[in-house]
C-alpha cells in the first residue's frame, strides 16, 4: 500500500511539474468519454444525407459544416471516435499479449525460444512498417479486424524487444533466485515474479504506441482499406474531403484530420508522462 501511495505521490509530482501531461490526461478522459457515449449525444444522425444542405461551411447548425452528401461533419467526427479509438485499443491490447508473452518467454528461457522470437522480430523489422501493414491487410482481406491485426503485427518487434530485455535482466535477480529456492517452478516464477515487474513497462509501451496505432489505422483507411463508406472514420473522412481541398471546401477534410491529430498528440504526450511516472530514468 505504501508503494502505491508513493506512486500516486510521484504521479502527482510529475503532473504538477509538467502541466502538459495533466492536459493530455484530461484530453484522454474526454476521448474515452466521447468514444463511449458519442453515438448517443450527437445532434444529427451521422449517416443522414440532405442534398439541400450539401457542402455548407461551418455554421451554428452544422458546427463543422457538411460534406458533399449534406451529412453533418461534427456528428460524424464524434461518432468516428469510437471506431478509431477502438481500432487503436484492440490492436495495442493484441500486441501487448502477443509481444509481451513472446518477449518475456524469450528473455526468461533463452535458447531456441529466444532465437525464434528474435528472428520473427528481425524479419518484421526488415519491412517499412506501413508497407507491411498494407500487404497484410491486402492478403488477409479488406476488413476492420484485419487492420487491427496488421497494426498489432507491425508493432510486435517493439513489444517483444522491451519485454525480452526486461525479463532477461530479472532472470538472475535475487528475488527470482529466492523464489526458485523456495521450490517455485519456472511457470510460477514467470507468472508471479517476472510478469508483474515487466507489466508497468509494457503499459508505458502501450500508451507510447497508441498514437502510432491510430495513425497507422487511419493511414490504411485513407488509402481505401478496411473501413467502408458510409461508416464514419477519421482517415476515410479525410480521404473523402481530399478532393474538395483544391476547390476550397476545407472543412470536410480538416475537422476529421484535426480530431486525428489531437488524439495522436494526446496519446504521445500521455505516453511520455506515463513513462516519467513509471520509469523516471528513461526520461529524455
Amino acid at each position, binding site marked *: 500500500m505504501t508503494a502505491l501511495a508513493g506512486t500516486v505521490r510521484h504521479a502527482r509530482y510529475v503532473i504538477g511539474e509538467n502541466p502538459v501531461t495533466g492536459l493530455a490526461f484530461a484530453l484522454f478522459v474526454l476521448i474515452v468519454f466521447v468514444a463511449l457515449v458519442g453515438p448517443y449525444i450527437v445532434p444529427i444522425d451521422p449517416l443522414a444525407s440532405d442534398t439541400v444542405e450539401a457542402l455548407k461551411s461551418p455554421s451554428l447548425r452544422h458546427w463543422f459544416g457538411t460534406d458533399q452528401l449534406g451529412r453533418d461533419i461534427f456528428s460524424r467526427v464524434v461518432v468516428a471516435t469510437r471506431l478509431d479509438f477502438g481500432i487503436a485499443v484492440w490492436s495495442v491490447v493484441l500486441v501487448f499479449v502477443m509481444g509481451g508473452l513472446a518477449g518475456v518467454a524469450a528473455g526468461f528461457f533463452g535458447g531456441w525460444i529466444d532465437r525464434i522470437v528474435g528472428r520473427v522480430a528481425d*524479419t518484421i523489422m526488415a519491412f*517499412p512498417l506501413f508497407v507491411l501493414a498494407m500487404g497484410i491487410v491486402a492478403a488477409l482481406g479488406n476488413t476492420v479486424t484485419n487492420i487491427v491485426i496488421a497494426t498489432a503485427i507491425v508493432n510486435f518487434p517493439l513489444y517483444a524487444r522491451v519485454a525480452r530485455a526486461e525479463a532477461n535482466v530479472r532472470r538472475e535477480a535475487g528475488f527470482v533466485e529466492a523464489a526458485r529456492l523456495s521450490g517455485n517452478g519456472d511457470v510460477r516464477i514467470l507468472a508471479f515474479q517476472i510478469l508483474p515487474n515487466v507489466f508497468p513497462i509494457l503499459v508505458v509501451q502501450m500508451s507510447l504506441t497508441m498514437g502510432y496505432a491510430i495513425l497507422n489505422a487511419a493511414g490504411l483507411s485513407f488509402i481505401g482499406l478496411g473501413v467502408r463508406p458510409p461508416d464514419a472514420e477519421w482517415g476515410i473522412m*479525410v480521404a473523402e474531403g481530399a478532393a474538395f481541398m*483544391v476547390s476550397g471546401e476545407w472543412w470536410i477534410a*480538416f475537422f476529421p484530420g484535426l480530431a486525428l491529430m489531437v488524439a495522436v498528440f494526446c496519446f504521445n504526450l500521455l505516453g511520455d508522462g506515463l513513462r516519467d511516472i513509471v520509469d523516471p530514468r528513461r526520461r*529524455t
Partner: protein
Amino acid sequence: MTRRERAAVATLILKRLLMAVPSLIGVVIVTFLLTRALPGDPAAYFAGPAASKEAVEEVRVKLGLDKSLPEQFVRYVRDLARGDLGTSLTTGQPVVSEIRTRLPASAELTLLGLIVSMGVAVPLGILAATRPGSLIDHACRVVATAGVSLPVFFTGLILVYVFYYLLGWAPAPLGRLDIFFSAPPPVTGFYLMDSLIAGNGELFLASLNQLVLPALTLGIFSLAPIARMTRASMLAVLSSDFVRTARASGLSPFTITVTYAFRNAMLPVVTTLGMVFSFLLGANVLVEKVFAWPGIGSFAVEALIASDFAPVQGFVLTMAVMYVALNLMIDVLYGLIDPRVRIDA
C-alpha cells in the same frame, strides 16, 4: 586511410552484406506467405474478382498453385531470380516493368523529402542542444512532438489548401509535371537531374515546383526523430571530456561545435536514419496518393483497390528489399565515418 584500415573496411562491408542475407530470406518468405498460406484461394486472388471459374483454374495451373507448398516456394524464388513478379491485371503489363518505370518518381520524392528534413532538423537539434532551456530548445521539443503527431496525408492536404488554393503559389497537386510540359529525356529518371542534363532550365523549375509541396510534407513528417536524436546526441557530446579539453585549450565555440562536437554527434543520427527511412517509405504511399504522384506507392494503392494482388506483392517486396539495402548502406556509411568501427572490425 592506411592499407590495414582499407582491409578492415572491406571486411566490415562483407560482414554486413552477409548479415543482410537472413533479412532478405525472411522478406522473400513473408511475401510468399502473404499470398499462399492464407485463408481464401490464391488463384482467385491472382485471377482477380471478375474471373470465371475456368480462368481461375487456368491461373492455378499457370502459377503452379496445384503443386505442394515447398514446390511453389522454389518456383516463386526461381521466378524472382529471373526478375519475374507476375503480371498486373489492371494494366496487363509485367509488374517489374511497371515498378521500374515508376520507381524514379518515388525515389526522387523520398530523397528530396529526406534532404528537406535533414536540412531543418539537424541545425535545429544543434541549436537546441547548444542553448538548452532557451526558446529554440522549446521550439525543437514542440516540433519533435508535433511532427510525429501529424498524420502525413493531413499535412499534405493542409499545404495544398494554403499554398495552392489560398495563396496560389504552388501548382495543382496533380503529378510530377504540369500538362503543358513533357518529360525530359530519361537518363537518371529524376526529372530534376534529367532536365539539368538536357539543359532545360524552365523544365527544371517546373518539376521543382511540383516537387516542393510533397517533399515538404514528407520532410515535416520525418523531422521529429532526426531533430530529437541530434539534440540528444549533441548534448551528450558537448558534456564529454574532449569538448571540455577543447574549451580549456581556448578554441572558439564555433570550432568546438562544428569541428569537434558535430562530427561525433552525427554518428547516432546516422543510425536513426534506418528508422527514418522506414517512416519515409511508408509515408511516401500516402503522400503519393494526396499529390497524385505517379510513383510505386500510388501504383500499389490502385492495385489494392482493384484487388489486383501481383502488383501489391511486388510492391511490398521491392520496398522491403530497398529498405534492407538502405540499412546496409547506412551501416557501411557508419563504418566509413567512424574510425573506431574500422579498428574493431
